[in-house]
């Protein structure tokens, strides 16, 4: 999920492309895009006709996008995670081209609808080709009244108010803070929601109850198998503040309690926050002797954030995230030391015992996305600077506040051509030895993404 990380290398044989051929890909893609830009996007005809009948609802509705993405990764060959990915150290850069097709739609009949979200992607780098197709969502929605909704099937959950992280999003997939607006695969659930509006101090409320089974072939990656989990959310709009109380119980993951809020304090200033408490959270921790042990603990995670719009149309989002379930600096150092020892072992012998141990630790929690305890997030976007309409430059920064390592991602976004979105990004990772971003596999990445919506 980390867009600043390169892909994991597997041992599968792949088609080879010569460097000469590789260089043609970006050129060809740019030519395709430029020559396929529709003339209507820049129409100068000065008529203001509007025929609303064209937009009348149809039973079958569908849409989606096609996307072309070019990425160039520069690896940090001295980093710990580089060694885990490429133990033979045979790679310094990665150039990858990815094509993606996403289809969404619905078929509606009175108060019933079937909705879907499908995604397929294929990518090719200098060595290998990969493709995959996923059903991100496919669910039936029944709405017997305006206040009651029943949904059954696979759908994505988006609980919580945080932009980069959602500690209270107990049914959410973990999003990429560098790209938090990307679609995420759902879980298969049955959910019932009930809404009431009061028009008093509590303006409205909604109760949602979700049943999430974990069986063979159903939500297998959620947690412990052969059980049924239950999650509930109570939403209240109190005065001008959104408040959610969230509860999860089940055997796949331990029970947990959450709370979130969001409020506008002024026409250009909003605040938000989340809180999560897990009374019994087990963590796999690397001991001094290199063994992995399960440590029972209770964890408290929280997030505080704000969003501010300046007179110059600059939007600033700031967040602070504390995650008790993350690893301390000392625990992470132990992990990096194990990888260093594995690297030394490989250099001097043919044994791979320590490498396997490090890989196992990675799979047990150390290798997951943003494993630290305290983070800061900042995203600043400037909409239409200097009267350049539909142009939005921005920069996103994430800092691990414990080890002071960070990543910075400036970007340029242009949406001036109808249904086209062009985005150019550069990600720069920086940190000392034994720090989170200093030990990532890559030290920078450049990405050009072009999307056409239909």
């Amino acid at each position: 999920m980390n867009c600043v990380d390169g892909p994991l290398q597997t041992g599968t044989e792949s088609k080879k492309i010569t460097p000469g051929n590789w260089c043609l890909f970006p050129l060809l893609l740019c030519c395709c895009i430029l020559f396929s830009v529709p003339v209507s996007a820049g129409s100068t005809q000065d008529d203001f006709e509007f025929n609303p009948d064209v937009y009348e609802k149809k039973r079958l509705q569908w849409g989606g996008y096609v996307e072309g993405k070019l990425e160039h990764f520069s690896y940090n060959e001295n980093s710990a995670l580089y060694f885990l990915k490429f133990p033979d150290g045979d790679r310094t850069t990665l150039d990858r081209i990815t094509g993606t097709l996403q289809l969404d739609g619905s078929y509606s009949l009175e108060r019933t609808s079937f909705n879907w979200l499908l995604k397929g992607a294929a990518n090719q780098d200098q060595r290998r080709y990969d493709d995959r197709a996923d059903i991100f969502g496919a669910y039936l929605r029944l709405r017997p009244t305006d206040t009651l909704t029943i949904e059954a099937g696979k759908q994505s959950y988006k609980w919580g108010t945080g932009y980069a992280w959602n500690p209270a999003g107990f049914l959410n997939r973990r999003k990429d803070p560098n790209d938090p607006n990307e679609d995420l695969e759902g879980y298969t659930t049955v959910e019932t929601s009930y809404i009431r509006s009061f028009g008093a101090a509590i303006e409205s409320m909604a109760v949602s109850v979700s049943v999430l089974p974990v069986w063979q072939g159903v939500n297998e990656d959620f947690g412990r198998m052969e059980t049924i989990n239950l999650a509930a959310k109570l939403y209240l709009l109190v005065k001008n503040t959104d408040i959610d109380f969230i509860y999860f119980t089940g055997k796949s993951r331990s029970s947990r309690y959450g709370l979130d809020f969001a409020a506008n304090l002024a026409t250009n200033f909003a605040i938000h926050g989340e809180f999560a408490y897990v009374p019994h959270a087990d963590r796999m921790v690397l001991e001094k002797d290199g063994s992995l042990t399960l440590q029972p603990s209770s964890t408290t995670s929280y997030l505080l954030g704000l969003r501010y719009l300046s007179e110059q149309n600059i939007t600033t989002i700031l967040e602070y995230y504390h995650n008790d379930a993350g690893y301390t600096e000392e625990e992470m150092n132990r992990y990096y030391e194990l990888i260093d020892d594995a690297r030394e072992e490989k250099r001097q012998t043919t044994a791979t015992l320590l490498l396997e141990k490090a890989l196992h630790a990675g799979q047990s929690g150390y290798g997951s996305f943003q494993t630290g305890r305290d983070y800061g997030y900042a995203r600043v976007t400037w909409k239409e600077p200097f009267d350049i309409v539909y142009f939005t430059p921005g920069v996103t920064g994430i800092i691990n506040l414990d080890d002071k390592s960070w990543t910075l991602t400036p970007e340029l976004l242009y949406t001036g051509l109808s249904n086209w979105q062009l985005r150019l990004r550069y990600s720069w990772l920086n940190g000392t030895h034994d720090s989170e971003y200093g030990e990532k596999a890559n030290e920078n990445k450049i990405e050009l993404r072009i999307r056409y919506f239909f």
Partner: protein
Amino acid sequence: MKNRLLYWFVVFFVAMIPENAPAIDGDELLRQVDANLQPDSYEMYRKLINIEPDGKKKEFVFYTVKKGKEKMVALFLSPASEKGRVSLRLGDNMWLYIPNVGRPIRITSLQSVVGGVFNNSDILRLDYHVEYDVNTITDKGETWALELKAKTRSVAYDRLKMTVDKKTVQPLDIECIASSGMLIKTLHYRDIKEFDDGIIRPARLMTDSPLHKGYRSVMIFAKMKKRKFDDEIFTLEFIPRVDELR
């Protein structure tokens, strides 16, 4: 029909006012302007066109429903890149829902979800009398000039200078002014026509701004008709299902 009767009643009432009549109630006049612009509860389709100095255009189409003084929802129908997005307004609170992406996020009235000259408070506009008091009213012959002052600081524009046509009791031009005194934009209502259910109001709203020289935005109204809605339609939980109202 009721709205039409009200319209003719107001026209008659205004025509009968002698030139030396005592000052009329500004707040009452503003309520009449609001009543003429939009019924209490309705649905409609809108096209919003952003026009650049070189004539290039970008268009958006919304399906909009409104109930009472402070509940409003706008669903994007076009272009494809925005389709399915929903903006919800409950009084001073505004949210934007982007399908498949995340829960509705709070947005602010001065932001613009469509770019161009219109901001969120223009697209999800409440009745003027809900957000403004009439400070002064001046008889200008065929029009009245109203100076409006925002009731709270959470309103997007601190002051409005509204020109109201006496014959139709419809707004013609509105200057939107910040608390600093700076003119942010001017709105021009044009093309009065009859919609369903006897609603008679301008079918176009045009705007320009000294802050975006050469840029214009136009909003075209269509298929406005009265319709009753449950309050529950205007909640965060219902936002993903707004399309089912059509």
